[in-house]
């Protein structure tokens, strides 16, 4: 009877004959020994230094892109305006010539 009880307990929690109940590894201890589950989100100020990105290149790239994009668009509009203006002047001159002849 006692041997049956010992056998059942050993199946449950790794209790071996000769060990006392206080030697049983507790559930809490077992869980504490396992590595903690890592949350997907880690606050940026808790990242290890080797995982932290330098901010300056990103900031400089952003501002450089803004300036270049706006400048490129202004140049584009100015060139298109200039081309149309030249065509207008040429055509108006031609109309004037045809009107005067």
């Amino acid at each position, binding site marked *: 009877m006692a041997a049956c009880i010992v056998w059942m307990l050993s199946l449950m929690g790794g209790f071996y004959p000769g060990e006392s109940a206080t030697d049983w590894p507790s559930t809490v201890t077992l869980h504490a020994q396992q590595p903690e589950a890592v949350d997907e989100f880690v*606050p*940026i*100020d808790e990242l290890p230094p080797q995982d932290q*990105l330098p*901010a*300056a290149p*990103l*900031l400089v*790239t*952003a*501002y450089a*892109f*803004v300036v270049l*994009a*706006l400048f490129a*668009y*202004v140049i584009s*509009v100015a060139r*298109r*305006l200039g081309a*149309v*203006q030249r*065509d*207008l002047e040429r*055509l*108006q001159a*031609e*109309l004037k010539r*045809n009107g005067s002849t």
Partner: protein
Amino acid sequence: MPVWFTPATALCGLMFAISPFLIANAPYESTMGLVQKIFYVHLPSAWMFLIAAIVCGVASIRFLFRGDARHDRLAWAAAELVVLFGIVTLVTGPLWARKAWGVWWQWDVRLTASLIGWMVSVAYLLLRKYGGPGSDKLAAGLALFGMANVPFIYISVNYWRTIHPTTSVVPTLPTSFGLPLWFSAVMFLLLFVLLLRARVRLEEQRAQLDALYLSVDG
């Protein structure tokens, strides 16, 4: 060009010269640090992106109902500005996000809807350039979808799960952050008005040129 154009251009240039000092003197945000300063161009360009989409949509509606070519010219000009400010927003945002969130992009509602709104405007411009006869009305119809997307982009962060900051952030900013932000916003708005006026002028001159060609052929 109207009388106010040159003084407004000078004012805009002056504001662009002053803004780096305001932005540099703004305090660092406690968690994001230096990279947060992208905010001072990202947010104003995003606002101009949305405003341009609304202008394009309203002008397109007026063109569809009245057939007035002036509204079509305004819509076409605004569509170009949607593409311009949209690409600025969609590039500066990920540059900030890479540092702040650890990823370049997230397929949440705001970012996805913004990308779709930008693509609608690119489609508008392609349609106007390559669409042929009737493309003006078809593009105007397309612009309505772009405008309908705008409130969706704005309120999405309040109703769907996202890592993007909500709309409650800006009204609660302290003055030290708010001053450079609103200065940049006014500067971008002035730039938007100037670019829109210049672009509309281009379309007006093209229309004048077309009329002259027709009179020569006639």
